[in-house]
């Protein structure tokens, strides 16, 4: 360790004491405008190529610079525009530059270090950048919903249709078996918490037995809280070669989110109002009976027959008003810029007493202090209210789709005279007397969250000359939330008394804090067009804390909602604390007239969750990109790139420790060794990634293609192997394997039509990834995702995919496919015709297995194998084949979805003037999300995971909350 510190100081000293002679200077002025329209461009960056001299344009698009004498090349650029270079003669004092809009986003700056950026023209990794327009094309509940289908190399899957999130983002395949599955989310330099907190639903559903909260509680991973409308860009670093600088948190990829900032100028106000609705998007299809069948099969009297009720529609058929109000104001002076935004939204759930609400306020302020110091302070305060109802696995008949599997549709569950009919069918079957309509009306499942995310970044210019700059950038930030959930299942519910304790309340209070501080010293050295060198050094400290307290009360007096009234009470607490420290150094060399970029970096990190908390693990990276100097016809640019890097994934919290299990018996404390073994020598798993690719642009920026091939190798794979039960052990903890993912990503951007009237932009992505466990130090084992290989499980074995699904039938165990899709594609199209705009996004996933246990609930209700699903032939076939000759509940989970459609029209400013408004760019929009799904999957939605986010176990469908589609009408205006 010591050697790094010495090295850092030596480099720092060298940088400070080298000095340049000041050349003779002159002043140039100019203006930057938009090509075609002549509109002035504020906040465009203007630099003298080959020097560190630069500035930004002011509100009126003008700039002035002190430059050395002689001929110069001036470079102007701004986000959303293609860069332009202009020769400036030795005597020239005025320069005007016009920039063309960068509709295909061929040129943006991407973060490559902590405080340094590089243009996409040079970057050596396949970094996907999503702009605010792409992100917010159609309103989405959460940011991860909004990213679906937009990133080549990402498989983004919702866990159920329950409102408010619960989405897994998997970048470049499965990269871990037992450590974290989540990418790292960084918002304005702050690592934000993406933990999924169970709300304690298990105490009601008994999905996992007992009182304790469980992964089957239909959890929401908390990145859902972020407000997508505040986001300027999202950069997706897909693997270790790009994310090495994030050390032992970069292995699953890094999602770098930058929020909007103010630009100097008059206050710009932007307002959007949306109204819409969510509706049930798919049903299982329940079976209707004739009166004669009902009498024969269920022994009812003909008078008891009431037709055929669509239970799914009755329970999930709500189309209540949803709305979203977004407003922002930004502006500022040359030294102070601000961006203030607010959001109020309510997504009404399709089931009574479900839904998702969010209110958020953001203030981003930038202040220039003198010429050397720039401060940027960003803060967001938000509240979300998530109500997800009851769904998913249960024991005893609590989930609505469980009840529907046993309640014939000729029975009317709807309330009469204010009271709900009892359910004699579930009762007779030995289960609880459950009328899901009563459950929806009386149960409350609010999860209230207040969250503050704030950061301050200080950029101090320590030294500036025309060849060198030295900047110190320091960011400190905190992400804190308090989550309080209160599940209330009142004693009046018909099923509540069944367990002997009428009424259940679960209170959860979770407090989570992430704090991090980093400082980077960046030195830039320029030797004209020959060489630009950026050296950065820094450190990062990170601290994570989480405390979750659950109190459960059962046997509650009517009307009481305080857990303390429970005759039977239980409580539990879990705590988590992680402390990390890392040092990093990076060198970027941009050479040969900005055609060759070489980067090398190392991050060295220790973490309290490692077996040896003092030991530093190093994550190097190196990359090169080269833009070909000689191009074939119609080609604007060709870039070859190769990148190599390592990143880690930390062991799960407390994995070094072997525990004693503490129990209570007759008021005494008991202890026994846990069956699960910790490992005091556990270390992070390390992924080593090599990616290479070609990017090319054609026809004056009308077409661009990106091709990337990568190989990601995960060593020291953290596994929890199944130990022999007969030894008294359950799970081990080992760095015991190796995994290799090979994949391809292709991005094709086209602007097929570009006229004054019609503009069509098309973006197609393709990606595939195939994983294989190439080493396993323990015997092959079943991952054990909950319901046994009779239905389907994942087997971990050498030489096979880590997500290989196996099933037992015909007396043996057979591999029946892979949970990972064969490939995924996204098709996004934006067509502008005059004032009209049409945008669409299609998301296609080919292959990938899902274990449909919901069907198992419904099948074989009758002796002929049929059940209460309308498709009786399918039920009969599955029932007959269950023990062979095929795995009937393992299904193909591929799909094609219309994720987004938006149609909008711009109202001419003339017209607004007529009605007396000064509003500009007023648009009326009709948009929809998840409008249509084509799939062979017979369940509600192949996007499903009963156990929430999982590395390899997200294949289980058990009576989930059904999917919904949404429609919104919006009006947006700028002032």
């Amino acid at each position, binding site marked *: *360790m010591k050697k790094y510190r010495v090295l850092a100081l030596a480099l720092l000293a060298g940088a400070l004491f080298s000095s340049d002679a000041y050349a003779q200077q002159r002043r140039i002025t100019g203006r930057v405008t938009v090509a075609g329209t002549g509109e002035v461009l504020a906040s465009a960056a203007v630099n003298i190529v080959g020097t560190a001299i630069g500035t930004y344009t002011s509100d009126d698009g003008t700039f002035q610079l002190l430059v050395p004498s002689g001929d110069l090349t001036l470079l102007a650029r701004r986000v959303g525009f293609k860069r332009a270079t202009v020769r400036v003669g030795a005597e020239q004092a005025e320069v005007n530059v016009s920039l063309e809009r960068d509709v295909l986003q061929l040129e943006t700056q991407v973060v490559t270090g902590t405080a340094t950026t590089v243009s996409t023209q040079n970057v050596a990794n396949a970094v996907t950048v999503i702009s605010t327009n792409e992100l917010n094309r159609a309103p989405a509940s959460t940011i991860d919903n909004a990213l679906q289908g937009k990133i080549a190399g990402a498989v983004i899957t919702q866990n159920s249709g329950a409102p408010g999130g619960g989405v897994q983002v998997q970048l470049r395949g499965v990269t871990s078996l037992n450590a974290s599955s989540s990418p790292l989310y960084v918002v304005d330099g702050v690592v934000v918490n993406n933990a999924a907190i169970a709300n304690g639903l298990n105490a009601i559903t008994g999905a996992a037995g007992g009182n304790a909260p469980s992964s089957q509680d239909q959890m929401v991973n908390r990145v859902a809280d972020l407000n997508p409308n505040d986001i300027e860009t999202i950069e997706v670093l897909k693997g270790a070669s790009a994310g090495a600088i994030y050390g032992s948190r970069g292995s699953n990829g890094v999602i770098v989110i930058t929020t909007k900032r103010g630009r100097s100028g008059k206050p710009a106000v932007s307002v959007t109002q949306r109204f819409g609705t969510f509706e049930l998007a798919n049903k299982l299809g329940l079976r209707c009976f004739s009166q004669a069948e009902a009498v024969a099969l269920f022994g009812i009297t003909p008078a008891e027959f009431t037709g055929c009720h669509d239970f799914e529609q009755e329970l999930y058929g709500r189309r209540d008003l949803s709305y979203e109000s977004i407003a922002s104001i930004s502006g500022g002076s040359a030294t102070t810029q601000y961006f203030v935004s607010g959001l109020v939204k309510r997504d009404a759930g399709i089931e009574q007493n479900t839904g998702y609400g969010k209110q958020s306020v953001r203030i981003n302020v930038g202040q220039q202090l003198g010429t050397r110091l720039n401060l940027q302070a960003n803060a967001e305060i938000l509240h979300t209210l998530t109500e997800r109802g009851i769904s998913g696995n249960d024991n005893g008949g609590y989930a609505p789709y469980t009840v529907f*599997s046993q309640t014939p549709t000729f029975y009317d569950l709807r309330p009469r005279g204010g009271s709900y009919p009892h359910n004699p069918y579930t009762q*007779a079957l030995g289960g609880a007397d459950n009328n899901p309509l009563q459950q929806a009306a009386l149960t409350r499942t609010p999860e209230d969250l207040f969250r503050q995310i704030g950061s301050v970044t200080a950029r*101090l210019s320590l030294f500036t000359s025309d060849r060198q700059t030295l900047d110190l950038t320091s960011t400190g930030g905190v992400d804190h939330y308090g989550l309080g959930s209160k599940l209330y299942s009142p004693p009046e519910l018909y099923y509540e008394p069944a367990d002997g304790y009428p009424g259940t309340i679960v209170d959860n209070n979770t407090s989570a804090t992430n704090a991090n501080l980093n400082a980077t010293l960046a030195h830039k050295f320029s030797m004209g067009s020959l060489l630009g060198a950026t050296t950065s050094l820094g450190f990062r400290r990170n601290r994570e804390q989480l405390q979750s307290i659950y109190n459960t009360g059962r046997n509650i007096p009517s009307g009481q909602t305080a857990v303390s009234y429970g005759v039977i009470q239980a409580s539990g607490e879990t705590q988590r604390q992680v402390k990390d420290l890392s040092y990093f150094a990076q060198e970027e060399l941009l050479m040969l007239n900005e055609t060759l970029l070489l980067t090398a970096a190392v991050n060295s990190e220790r973490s309290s969750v490692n077996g040896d908390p003092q030991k530093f693990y190093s994550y190097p990276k190196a990359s090169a990109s080269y833009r070909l100097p000689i191009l074939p016809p119609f080609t604007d640019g060709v870039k070859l790139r190769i990148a190599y890097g390592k990143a880690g994934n930390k062991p799960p919290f407390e994995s070094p420790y072997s*525990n004693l299990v503490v129990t209570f018996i007759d008021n005494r404390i008991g202890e026994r060794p846990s069956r699960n073994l910790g490992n005091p020598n556990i270390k992070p798993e390390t992924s080593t990634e090599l990616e290479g690719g070609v990017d090319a642009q054609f026809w004056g920026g009308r077409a661009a293609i990106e091709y990337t091939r990568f190989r990601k190798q995960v060593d020291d794979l953290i596994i929890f192997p199944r130990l022999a039960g007969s030894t008294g052990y359950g799970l081990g903890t080992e760095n015991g394997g190796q995994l290799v993912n090979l994949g391809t990503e292709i991005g094709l951007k086209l602007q097929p039509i570009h006229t004054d009237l019609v503009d069509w932009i098309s973006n197609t992505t393709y990606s595939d990834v195939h994983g294989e466990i190439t080493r396993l130090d323990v015997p092959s084992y079943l991952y054990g995702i909950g319901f046994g290989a009779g239905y389907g499980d994942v087997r971990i074995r050498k030489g096979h995919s880590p997500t290989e699904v196996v099933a037992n039938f015909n007396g043996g165990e057979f591999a029946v496919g892979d949970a990972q899709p064969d490939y995924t594609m996204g098709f996004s199209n934006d067509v502008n015709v005059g004032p009209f705009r049409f945008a669409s996004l299609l998301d296609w996933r080919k292959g990938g297995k899902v274990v449909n246990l919901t069907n198992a609930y419904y099948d074989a209700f009758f002796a002929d194998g049929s059940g209460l699903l309308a498709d009786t032939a399918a039920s009969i076939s599955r029932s007959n084949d269950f023990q062979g000759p095929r795995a009937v509940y393992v299904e193909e989970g591929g799909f094609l979805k219309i994720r987004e459609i938006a149609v909008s029209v711009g109202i001419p400013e003339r017209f607004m003037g007529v009605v007396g408004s000064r509003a500009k760019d007023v648009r009326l929009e009709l948009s929809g999300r998840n409008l249509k799904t084509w799939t062979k999957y017979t369940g509600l939605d192949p996007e499903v995971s009963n156990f929430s986010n999982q590395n390899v176990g997200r294949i289980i469908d058990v009576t989930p909350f059904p999917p919904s589609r949404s429609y919104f009408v919006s009006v947006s205006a700028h002032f």
Partner: protein
Amino acid sequence: MRYHYRYAIVAALAGATLVAACESATVPDLNAPSTTELAGPLTQASVQRLVSGLVDNVRRNAGLGYFYFGEAFARDAYRFDPSESRYIYEAYTSAPSRTSFFGASQYNGFYGTIRAGTTIIKKLKDTPTTTISAPEQAAIRGFVRTFQALEYYHVEEYHDTLGTPIQLADSSKLGPIYCPKSALAAISSLLDSANIDLAAAVAAGVTTFPFELPSGFVVNGNFTDVTTFRKTFNRGLKGKVEVYRGIGRNNDGVASSFDVAIAALDTAIGPTPTTMAQLNVGPYFQYSTAPGEFPNPIADQNLRINQRVGDSVQAGDLRASKIVKGDLSSYTARGFKYQTQYYPAVSLTTRPANFVNPIGILRVEELVLLRAQAKIGKGDLVGALQDINTVRTISGGLAPLPPFVATGTLTATQVAIKALLYEKRYSLLLEGPQRLVDLRAYKMLNAANLPKEVVPNPITGAGDRFNSAFFIPQSESDVRGGNVAPVCP
């Protein structure tokens, strides 16, 4: 000036870096005590905690599955769970799974107790006799080994001819997988070594265990007393094991075991019981609904008693109160319909007492019937009749049976076994898999002796399957490379 400013920045940065590096990097185990707590010798206090942990684990292992699955295989009970058809399906229709909560259960937890016990015994070796005296150590060892034997026996009950791994030398190593004959022999010898320790402790003046025990050990008899524990529980369990060694599986019974069983059971039972209280003597699992505690696992609204069990109880049998007649419930598990009007009284959640109702681990009532089985095994039908009638008259409140004589196609021995099984069924209803073990041992777990529950599917033949044991779980089989065939050394 400018340079001083820069030095200050550099110094501050270097300082911050150093401070960052010096901050403690360690986070302790926040959510559970670490096993490092077990470093060093045992103390009275740590023995208390570890014994309480062990007893609690025995109690938790004997959960719903333990009480239900065996009774389901024996066709005495159903569990109708609308969300989980495998409670029925794996018992009545399909082979038990190697991977499910049903078929792969009744295994891991028991070995967890065995390992916890081995930990205590190993730690005792490092404990000076000044802290815990040698006779006290003997009492602790005897107690722990008796419970280890009980847990091995629970594995054996459920795994039978499919094998029971036993490794007495070091339970943390992979041990051989034994066939019933060898498994029972090993368990029997473990009980004997415990017996020797317990007797030695008493001889050296240790009358009560050097730790406190939960109230289940004093509800019926005082099992905190080392002698009572040794005689009634250790010897009682020894007798139980020897009875099944005597009967054997597949004609490999050890005839001499019946004598060993009778001797052990005589010690355990003492004078012939004359009251229900005496029949109820034994250690019990006790339950509580207090936070962190474990409520009675069969206080469960989904449990049912087979219609035939309710219908065939003899008129006047006091044990009929264990079965409550209610509404007909019918359940469909993968196409097969099961129905019954009977509920176990101990399962009714409408009776709050059921949540804390203790369950006997091994009661004298069972011991008396086991002695009858040993006597039947020896051909002593007169002696067997006496034991059977002890239970029949006291527990059942029924008239004593006349001497067993051959009836129709049944031999006198078969008549005796039938009579015995009647008493066992109603005396021990939902107290464990005793009936499964008996039906298996007497080769009666088949269509010749048990009526069909459902009509098998004419095409697939599925339905009404007679399962007798669980497979070695897939996880264990995977570690052993699939080599799980039992051996009979």
